């Protein structure tokens, strides 16, 4: 299994070759509550590091999802657009948001490990 890394904005990233899969963490879904809308980017879109890439909305509010790494979108997960509630059920598995071809693996390496992220969440509740 590929290694998973985490961002301070509560995205997770897993890397296979030069293609990264990005989603939002379980912790993020718990903060958001019931998710009722998702918008994902189309293939071909170029993203800067930490730029806005997707949208997720709960009954309460809309939030942006950022790409922790720069790259070109190869795929957006249409199944979460059709069934936004599935993000609450399996945020770190089947309910990924988008895949992108990355340019610089160092950007991936610089993200937090699982332990570092858990610690970050504890220190920064809400």
């Amino acid at each position, binding site marked *: 299994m590929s290694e998973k890394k985490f961002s301070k904005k509560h995205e997770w990233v897993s890397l296979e070759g030069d293609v990264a899969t990005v989603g939002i963490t379980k912790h993020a879904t718990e903060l958001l*509550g*019931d998710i*009722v*809308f998702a918008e994902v980017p189309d293939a071909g879109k170029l993203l800067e590091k930490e730029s806005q890439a997707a*949208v997720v*909305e*709960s*009954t*309460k*509010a*809309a939030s942006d999802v950022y790409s922790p790494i720069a790259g070109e979108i190869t795929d957006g997960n249409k199944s979460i*657009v059709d069934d*936004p509630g599935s993000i609450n059920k399996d945020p770190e598995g089947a309910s990924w948001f988008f895949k992108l071809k990355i340019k610089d693996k160092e950007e991936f390496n610089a993200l937090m490990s699982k332990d570092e992220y858990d610690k970050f969440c504890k220190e920064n509740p809400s």
Partner: protein
Amino acid sequence: MKRVIMQTQKTALYNIHKNLGAKFVPFAGYEMPIQYKDGIVKEHISTRTFAGFFDVSHMGQFFLEGDETLTEALEKIIPADLKSLKINHSKYSFLLNNYGGIIDDLIVTKTEKGFCIILNAACKDNDIKQISQFLGKNHKYLLNNDLSLIALQGPKSVEILEKLIPGVSNLKFMTGNNFNYDSEKLYVTRSGYTGEDGFEISISNKKVEKLINFLILNEVKPIGLGARDTLRLEAGLCLYGHDLNEKINPVEANLKWAIAKKRKEDGGFNGWNKIKSLLTNGSEKIRVGIMPEGKVIARENAKIFSTEDNEIGFVTSGTFGPSVNAPVAMGYVKSNFAKVGTSIKLEVRGKKYGGKVSELPFYKKSYVK
């Protein structure tokens, strides 16, 4: 300069909410539960299919006592027919300013000694200032902070509350009465703000915990402000500070039904001249229901455009309606775009999405009349 330190207030049920796993948010100066463990969608559905309770003790329970001069005084700022209101009957109405703008929306109930008015939490202090301008020396008034207010809403409410307080099942919608509970008097009205059958129970802070324990024992779920918002929006009901404010009058708000027929004709209340002319000529903009196409949620302040891309209005409330199973919204559009079925465009995050002017409410239930 005097420095005012705002302290967040808590209702008598604060610790109960905490034990029930509430997530709190500051709301109108109070720490209030936005949701509990189940989350907004489940709380919403439990209210629609079974029953839920809401702590609405942050709302003002304002009691007035006096003779017929009190009724006359209140009619100067409230456009309801208070003179004809029978004891224990309630009306939805407003406080109006000189321009007919809505200072607050409220429920007024005739009591034996005068009136009880339920005021929005964020407005209550100003409301009392505005009302008291019309009161005389022989009128007594009190914002009773010793009382909690619990809304019990949903189809099972009547069956459950009847077990605890026999007689409540005889109440008709928008009426109330005094009942005895645990050797104390409490006041129950058949009303609410969810589109469901239900009750609002005015009970002393000392006894409220006991009432809540009974409701929990009967599997009634606690419901936070989040689901209160999705429930009221599906029911097409306005939220003050969002769908209503001092610059909006009842005609624009599509609430002219709440102005008594007699009062429309006879006037004698704040802003009547303005309202009279609007009743004859119509208003420039009007509140409508909106159904966005697809799943996109148009929230407060989203701009509304015609199909020809002319800006025609703005959204004042919008969310996902769990019972409608689609996004729903309310907003103001130019009156010539208000017809149900009119195609419109909604601007969300810089992109325009299709939508339609829709009938209100989005979700219909029949009240016990």
